[in-house]
């Protein structure tokens, strides 16, 4: 008994140093030397300013301004609306505004809940309001599921191609581009299935929007 207690105490301390200090520092060393970009979050800078991470989704809503030209707030959160000049990410329900990457969260919307159906309906309404003027044939049934549901992390950097193709009508009109040119950019920023069969193809929204800005100039 006494022997076990002493051995346990020594073992826990020695192993904590080995597994809690030496091992993580070794991986950090290797990561920082061999893959500094990836180990540090694949940061994207534009003109020296940090715009975001390549693999973390972002909101492309813009602040709504009040009469005095100041950003409007409700319950200490910015009021935002979709910026029509950009492709829109999937809906996100993180605390403190959409796509808060310091507080990832599940939405936990159950399959049989009225609340879930209502949230879906609201997202569908917003999607149609934004896209239908540029794509008159668009119906609820034609909306891809990812466009109106929240992701697992609520930080999904991708949207489906179908979702992007619908939004392309709006982008082409607002930015005075041909639909073909926008669809070309979509293909360019689509990540295919890994190894050809793993997962689903997804369009990286941030990279796509950055490419649009490079092509026709940013709006901010």
């Amino acid at each position, binding site marked *: 008994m006494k022997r076990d207690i002493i051995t*346990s105490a020594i073992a826990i301390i020695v192993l904590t140093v080995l597994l809690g200090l030496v091992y993580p520092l070794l*991986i950090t060393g290797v990561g920082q030397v061999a893959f500094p970009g990836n180990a540090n979050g694949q940061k994207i800078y534009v003109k020296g300013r940090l715009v975001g991470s390549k693999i*973390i989704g972002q909101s492309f809503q813009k602040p709504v301004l009040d009469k005095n030209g100041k950003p409007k707030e409700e319950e200490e959160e910015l009021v935002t609306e979709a910026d029509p000049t950009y492709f829109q990410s999937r809906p996100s329900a993180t605390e403190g505004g959409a796509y808060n990457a*310091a507080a990832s969260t599940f939405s936990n919307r159950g399959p049989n809940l009225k609340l879930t159906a209502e949230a879906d309906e609201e997202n569908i309404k917003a999607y149609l309001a934004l896209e239908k003027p540029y794509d008159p044939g668009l119906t609820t049934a034609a909306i891809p599921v990812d466009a109106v549901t929240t992701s697992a992390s609520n930080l999904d950097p991708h949207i489906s191609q179908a979702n992007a193709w619908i939004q392309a009508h709006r982008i082409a009109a607002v930015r005075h581009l041909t639909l073909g040119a926008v669809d070309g950019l979509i293909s360019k920023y689509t990540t295919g299935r890994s190894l050809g069969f793993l997962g689903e193809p997804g369009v990286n929204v941030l990279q796509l929007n950055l490419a649009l800005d490079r092509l026709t100039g940013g709006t901010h």
Partner: protein
Amino acid sequence: MSFAGWMTIVAFVVILTAVALPLGSYMAKVYAGERVFLTPILGGPERLLLRVLRADSDREQDWKAYAKSVLIFSLAGWLLLYLILRTQNAFFVPHRLNPLGYHSAPWNVTFNTVSSFVTNTNWQYYSGETTMTYFSQMLGLTVQNFLSAGVGIVVAVALIRGIIGRSGKGIGNFWVDIVRTILYVLLPISIIGAIFLVSQGVLQNFTTYLTAHTLTGLTQSVAMGPVGSQEAIKLLGTNGGGFFNVNSAHPFENPTAFTNLVEMLLVLIIPAALVFTYGRMTGNRRQGYAIYGTMMVMFLGAVVVAYIAEAHGSPAQHAAGLHTHVIAGSGGGNMEGKEQRFGIAGSALFDVVTTVTSCGAVNSALESYTGIGGAVPFANLSASEVIFGGVGTGLYSILLYVLLAVFIGGLMVGRTPEWLGKKLEAREIKLAGLAILITPLAALFSTAMAVATSGGRASISELGKGPQGFSETLYAYLSQSNNNGSAFAGYTGFIQPNAGNLGSHGVTFADILGGLVMLFARFGPIVFALAVAGALAGKRVTPAGLGTMRTDNPTFVILLIGVILLVGALTFFPALLLGPVVQGLTSNLY
């Protein structure tokens, strides 16, 4: 559903088997103390560690001594982890390891968290990036990720030694086994896994959270941290406690569909390999193949059901007017709570991989699964961790079921039951029966308490209406009693109003009940499994005769599956009917 989706499942099973076979042989050699290819590198550190611990492989322990070492070692780990988590903001913690100045979570949440990590459960009421400092994640949680996994594995190895033991009462030396497990198995694979994950985009840094300025004039804060080193062992040790709140759904924990495949492999390789280790150690590899076959049949059944169920949308989506089938440029299906890069197949497979094992990592929101899709993790948990199961725990649990199946088979053919040449008697059957019953007992008793009291119902989320609320609660205690750790995450034991620890408080009822359930359902079966090892170790081996029931053929596989399903169904069916089954059968909205 798509061809690519089915391909994913097939490829996964093929790669898993191809990796697990050699790893199983390797582990058999490690535990026999034979030379392996890593001995030239690790032999020195191994001898040094054993000398420091004054452990010697020649000094075998009987089951009681072995169990005592397991318990005291785990208790020591519990105490140190509690200390670390409660002092994460103390003066001696360098700023670099707590850049945001996080305070500790309250005592009740910490009790739950510590019990959770020491029992290999990794149930998390807290949210990683708003609660834990780099100091706690590294020196506290990462360490227990290794140690709790190690404890599971050595208990399985000790049980095998008992089963095959020819003389005396010794079932090995705990200290030697745990040192070898960490040095020869867990650490090398974690290092390779972590470096691979970082190369693909998993974070590994100590910088403070970033502030980005978005294209539309908003700011975005982005969490950072030493994620890769913890991620690798989180999966390899079937721990499952995410660095971030959303676990393997977070792009910084699981950036691509390729890392998703590798993460699933990391979860299953040790549980799968141990089955082959068992075959090798008994000297009859077919014994291992029979158990592998049993596990694989049940595993594939679960995967197929989950994939098909999730490829259809949910009643809520259909009520909103969405069509959820495959169209050009979209895989369709129930994408609520799923990531685009994984799609339905990558999410459903991950879900099954981590709920058959005790991993409990998630890459999609289980609470948003359809009724039937969500019933799959329920069913996996109801099978009490024997379909691969946790590292070690899966093997020792299924071996207890094998014992039960041999006993029932023996009764059916009217002969004294024999297993690998050893006669099974009342003592072993009683011990195995007790070990098997502890988990369901803990799960059902605690669920009943939680739904019958207002203290328990306080944890149900506001979205937990109708059967969803019962599902959440049942899943919470089923997951904790199986030491799994996955969640229908609406169920809460920690209220964080300001997305942090300031002003937060725990839900004492859920925290303490859950913590006790995890400890009871982890160490109870461990003690009984070791007692079975002790009971079998000294028995004489008689050569197999004509009438001996074989335990390495398809007939036995069917019998074993039958016993597992029967025990699981008899204990959990009524409870499952009230939650997920109702949700799967109705298109009503609540």
